């Protein structure tokens, strides 16, 4: 099982450039979605994305709070300070996608938890960790 890469939604680039997203100041969350979700590059607001994992089995609707940080100068990396971890409790947590979104705002990016594509399941008592890649969520650097 290998996860896919984070993928920006279509509006995210403009949202970053016009200040809609202040990545290291605004409040962001990471949420999990089912295979039936309409989450795609066309997604805009978090409210418009369907079929989030229901708020059961250790998952809270809306997902987990995350803090995005920006580091570097010529190569700037956007990273998640603390990896979100969900512990399945009373049943399994099964999801197809994760997304990062601004609270009460737009979706920044999303990924497949299993690039197959497939669902990922943490069974009762086990954890599901969204571990940040060594290169963060994305990096902005001079063109090679």
């Amino acid at each position, binding site marked *: 099982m290998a996860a*896919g890469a984070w993928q*920006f939604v279509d509006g995210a680039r403009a949202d970053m450039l016009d200040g809609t997203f202040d990545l290291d100041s605004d409040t962001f969350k990471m949420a999990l979605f089912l295979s039936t979700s309409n989450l795609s590059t066309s997604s805009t607001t978090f409210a418009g994305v369907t079929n989030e994992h229901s708020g059961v089995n250790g998952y809270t609707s809306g997902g987990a709070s995350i803090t995005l940080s920006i580091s570097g100068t010529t190569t700037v990396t956007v990273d998640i300070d603390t990896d979100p971890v969900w512990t399945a409790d009373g049943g399994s947590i099964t999801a197809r996608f*994760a997304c990062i979104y601004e609270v009460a705002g737009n979706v920044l990016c999303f990924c497949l*938890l299993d690039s*197959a594509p*497939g669902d990922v*399941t943490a069974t009762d008592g086990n954890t599901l*960790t*969204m571990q940040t890649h060594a290169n963060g969520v994305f*990096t902005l650097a001079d063109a090679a």
Partner: protein
Amino acid sequence: MDYSKMSVDELINESIKLKREIAELKDRRVAIKEAIKRNNDEAAIRAKLGKLSEGERNALREVYGLGDVVVTPGPARLNLKGG
């Protein structure tokens, strides 16, 4: 071993010793047969697992679990174009 030169007591003892060794060998044979059966069962299960659909595998995961899951998405790609 020349049994014709042994006393009756020695022959009886030798017979008892052989009987005990036969019993031990029988136990070992049973253990070997059980190990073969376990290996065959495991091989059959592995062969079956390779043919399961994603839904069947997920159902098995639901029942038996896979332990903690760590997902590491790769970084997003931005393509900046300069003038």
